[in-house]
């Protein structure tokens, strides 16, 4: 995992995601999910491209099912953009870099 991302848990979700002063991209993933591995380098790239303007948090749903359930995640990878404590964008599946970048960019000031 790249150093530009944070590990999210049920315990720190409130502080790291919902209370974040800047927009947050949350990557709901799991170790047993092939497509999650496919999209991981794309998420890392987005994190380094938008460093300082976007926080990227990776939540392993295996250990943090409560956060996943709370936001209705039923398929992984699910990538959600949070702004001001609210989910404002959801991208489901291993999407190409351009598509994820577009979904993120429109929520960045």
């Amino acid at each position, binding site marked *: 995992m790249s150093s530009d991302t944070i590990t999210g848990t049920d315990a720190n979700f409130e502080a790291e995601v919902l209370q974040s002063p800047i927009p947050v991209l949350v990557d709901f993933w*799991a170790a047993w999910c*092939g497509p*999650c591995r496919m999209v991981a380098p794309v998420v890392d790239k987005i994190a380094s491209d938008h460093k300082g303007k976007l926080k990227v948090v990776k939540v392993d749903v*295996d250990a943090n099912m409560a956060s996943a359930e709370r936001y209705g995640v*039923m*398929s992984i990878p699910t990538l959600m953009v949070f702004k001001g404590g609210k989910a404002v964008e959801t991208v*489901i599946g291993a999407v*190409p*870099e351009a598509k994820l970048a577009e979904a993120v960019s429109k929520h960045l000031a």
Partner: protein
Amino acid sequence: MTESWEVVIVGAGPAGLAAAVYTGRARRRTVVLEKAVPGGQILRTDRVDNCPGYPDGVDPRILMDNFKAQAVKFGAVLERAEALAVKHDAAGWIVATDKGEFAGRAVLVATGSVYRKLGVPGEADLAGRGVSYCAVCDGAFFRERTVAVVGGGNNALTEALFLSRLARKVVLIHRRAAFRAERILQERVFALPLIEVLRDTVIDRIEGRARLESLSLRNVRSGEASTLAVDGLFVSIGTVPSSDLVRGLAGLDDWGQIKVGPGFVAAEGGLFAAGDVTDACPPQLATAVGSGVQAALSIEDYLGRA
């Protein structure tokens, strides 16, 4: 900027990486382009039980990491790049990607395939909201729930068996009476009371507001319609070849598969194709490997003559 290689392989699944082992050992400068991570569609499954040499089955993640390590060991270079176009000029082939151009005396297209969608109302709206294309990825969200699997091939039955370990009930829906899947998989599925099998049945519509609630079914023999309440639907009805890259350069069949001749030649002058993007390779690990190796041997023969 254009990088020059002897062999450019597009796609790092079983076919592309097996070919890279051979072209690498032939000391041909080889680059393998992969838009995501090496491994391919096989990473969507939890366990491979029909890979020769692994009597106890093998985790596809470990297997594909080993494929990659072996290709790299013999000199192949892996690049994370998405191929956008293939062009032919006097000097050979050029693969244009999001990371620049890769020129090759020979190009092997091993781009594989992507899962096929049902194409019924409600599917797009409820994808990721109960409709899934990967049981291994999403099965855990349906613990103690009722799920359906649609399809009749190896993947569909493998997914039904995987889900039967998590779900309260699994309904396997197939449009025909007979299943295409291996007999051993059929025996396992039919032996489990937890799995209900609906034959000759199609899904006309997927219903649900915020999330999947039910499926509108129709028996194709009797015409009888019914509704099945489910929490999840796993679509496993085969794949669509990722052949757009060579449309116009190589012949495609009615399903979009690249038509290959002996030696997995896709077009004269050094264009080859292997794996399940072609019309000569069933979507199996071992056949993908075999086709990749045959293509690599054919590439070596071509480079030796050219």
